[in-house]
């Protein structure tokens, strides 16, 4: 049986990338809020090297530069919730944080962890999608640090699967500052304010002017193998005045666009109904704004 043979806690990105480059048998430890229960529950086997990345300064912090906000992969949900920058520019993220698990978990869970876990129902993922977030990745393939960026829409491949390469580290999320008159709301279905795996979640964003949304972004969670953008719904919404008929039409397109499954949390039929009813409700709210 393969046991953990090495525990390391690198203090620089270079060091961490070097470990990943040397061997594929590395499990990354950040907040641990997902790794620990998965490992203890036998659903995930920790590889031969356990690498604690929590001491890498570059992965921390929430900063702004060049018209974009950069959230370090190690930013905790609590830090995001309390960040002045985020509250001012990206309040939809604060909304999502408020629905995330519990205070104890928010204090430890990292945005990077949430993104890399790529759960179809991941709380932070839907708002990141409607904000056009990009993933920042780093690796050290040829002895020097190489970076690349990828839109989050391309990052998620399947449940728990991302395009992060085996030797790559997610270093942060980059979100362009929203334009003027930006509207962005997030809804997570549940009977509790938080501590719920959502049956569905919805993110709607765009530029709101004269009762219509343009540069529309719509994303749904828990209704597909990955958190998904909804191009047909966006198209139906783009630039249209939000009267009752349009809202009903768009809600119908949304219902048809999603492909949820039955599981112990909800049936596919009900998820579709929720997508329809809640999209309609959210758009009615947009119309009143």
């Amino acid at each position: 049986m393969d046991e953990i043979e090495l525990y390391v806690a690198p203090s620089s990105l270079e060091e961490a990338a070097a470990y990943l480059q040397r061997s594929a048998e590395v499990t990354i430890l950040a907040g641990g809020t997902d790794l620990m229960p998965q490992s203890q529950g036998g659903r995930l086997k920790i590889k031969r090297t356990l690498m604690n990345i929590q001491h890498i300064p570059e992965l921390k912090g929430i900063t702004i530069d060049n018209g974009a906000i950069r959230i370090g992969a190690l930013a905790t949900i609590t830090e995001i919730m309390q960040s002045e920058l985020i509250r001012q520019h990206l309040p939809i993220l604060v909304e999502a944080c408020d629905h995330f698990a519990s205070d104890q978990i928010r204090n430890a869970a990292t945005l990077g962890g949430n993104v890399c876990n790529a759960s179809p129902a991941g709380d932070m993922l839907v708002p990141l999608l409607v904000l056009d977030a990009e993933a920042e990745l780093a690796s050290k393939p040829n002895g020097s640090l190489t970076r690349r960026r990828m839109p989050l829409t391309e990052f998620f491949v399947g449940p728990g699967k991302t395009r992060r390469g085996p030797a790559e580290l997610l270093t942060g999320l980059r979100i362009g500052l929203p334009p003027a008159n930006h509207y962005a709301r997030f809804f997570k279905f549940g009977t509790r304010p938080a501590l719920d795996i959502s049956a569905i979640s919805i993110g709607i964003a765009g530029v709101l002017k004269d009762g219509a949304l343009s540069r529309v972004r719509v994303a749904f969670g828990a209704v597909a193998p990955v958190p998904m953008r909804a191009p047909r719904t966006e198209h139906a919404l783009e630039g249209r005045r939000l009267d009752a008929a349009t809202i009903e039409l768009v809600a119908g397109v949304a219902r048809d666009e999603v492909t949820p499954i039955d599981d112990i949390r909800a049936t596919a039929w009900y998820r579709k109904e929720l997508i329809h009813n809640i999209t309609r409700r959210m758009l009615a709210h947009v119309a009143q704004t």
Partner: protein
Amino acid sequence: MSLKHDIEFNLNGIKRRATVRVDMSALDMLREVVGLTGTKYGCGEGECGACTILVDGLSLNACLMFAVDCHGRDVVTIEGLAADAKADALRAAFVEHGAVQCGYCTPGMVVQASHLLTTHPAADAEAIKRGIEGNLCRCTGYKKIVEAIASVSQAGRQGATP
């Protein structure tokens, strides 16, 4: 043989060392290696809050934390709050308001409440309920727990020394 690792950290104000299995949770370390049983096992998955501790001033589920991650950090358990004024006020309030029945959730509740009142000294009932949403209780129905915490919060609000 699983890999063991030596760590050094502050536990309840005292610097100490421990040797832990690399895949061990902080909860197991506290209970089995250090021998402090006030932090409880409720679910092992971060859903019940019975294992709530403070790490670098933030409340966390010890069952979700790797023991090795305690290295270099400040860890406080319910035992470490024995001389804490705010925790004292909370304990007295829990007793006064009937917020303890079987008591199994109580240490986690007290630690979480202590953290809540540090970050939101004037938390009202709604904020308190959200603040303890990660702490399950099967006996009390939460009402008296919320009242107990609110009574300490009120005291804070009115400027009384907790």
